[in-house]
């Protein structure tokens, strides 16, 4: 895909996201945001995102694929653990997970 194609793809992606925002404005006040329809929508979004994220950890595409699966899984578990241990601090949890991954990668590169 050339650069023009990439920009067109991006414009489609922006529009495909804005559809939900715009529709939200149109129907707000007329529909219950706690209703069944939204429950289905939210389940689809959660399943899709969890699928994407777990795939990035277990079966990554690109450069991450060169790292051992143990490093990726272990670092993620550490990050989540730190998040819960330190009053649900998102920054600290994320930083810890990335730091462990970084240290493991450096050690492997050195050995």
């Amino acid at each position, binding site marked *: 895909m050339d650069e023009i194609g990439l920009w067109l793809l991006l414009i489609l992606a922006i529009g495909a996201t804005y559809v939900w*925002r715009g529709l*939200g404005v149109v129907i707000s006040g007329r529909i219950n945001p706690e209703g069944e329809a939204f429950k289905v929508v939210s389940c689809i*979004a*959660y399943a899709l995102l*969890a*699928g994407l*994220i777990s*795939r990035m950890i277990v079966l990554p595409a690109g450069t991450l694929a060169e790292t051992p699966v143990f490093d990726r899984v272990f670092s993620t578990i550490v990050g989540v653990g730190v998040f819960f241990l330190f009053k649900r601090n998102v920054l600290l949890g994320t930083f810890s997970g990335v730091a462990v991954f970084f240290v493991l990668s450096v050690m492997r590169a050195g050995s």
Partner: protein
Amino acid sequence: MHSKTYRTPGAASAGGVRDAFKVSAWVIFASMMGFGSLARVSGLTLGVSMVSSGAIWGLPGQIAFAELYATGAPVLAIVLAVSLANVRFLPMIVAMMPLFGEGVKNRAWHYVLAQLASVNTWAAAMRVCPHLPHELRAPYYVGFSIVCLLSGLAGTATGFVLAVELPPVVTLSLVFLNPVYFTIVFADVRHRSGVIALLIGAVGGPLFYQVSTDWGLLATGGIGGALAYFVDRILRRRHG
């Protein structure tokens, strides 16, 4: 905590700016830095990365965009996946817009306010705006959102540039920031249907990916999401 009273729209905007710098701006900067690096190694340009951060303005969809682009998925699969990854904006906006209904009479502005919503800005609006007078809500929200948006753009550019300036192991770690960050965000989901959908999706994602790299993600969302919804329904009937 938010008992502060703002007297003018300007003061409310300034309050929003200050509040954004407390936590949200930093979380957004860090997560968008991860995206910037991912975008670079996925073959996106700096311009495309920045515009995707500013205009898609929803990290899950942006990550789906970069990942599926890198694996060479067809256009329709990419656009649908980005859209579904960001479908949460629909219920979020529906819940948020009534906050601004009386303060912002011109409905055209509602479509602009909707574009500014992200998980962080939405949460701030839902938490703070109900305690503010109607005419000060949009100024507060806009002040808060603009800081978040600028911080996201700065983070994207930083991650994009750092991805080649630094040793490969640092780039790798910045790319890895994306899944770690979202695993943590998901670990905090409490409601039952969400937890079930996350678990089914986490198992289904890698499985469906092996069946089809192009359409596996959409299948995970559609099949996994529907399954999660029905499992939750059955549990609701039994246990309420």
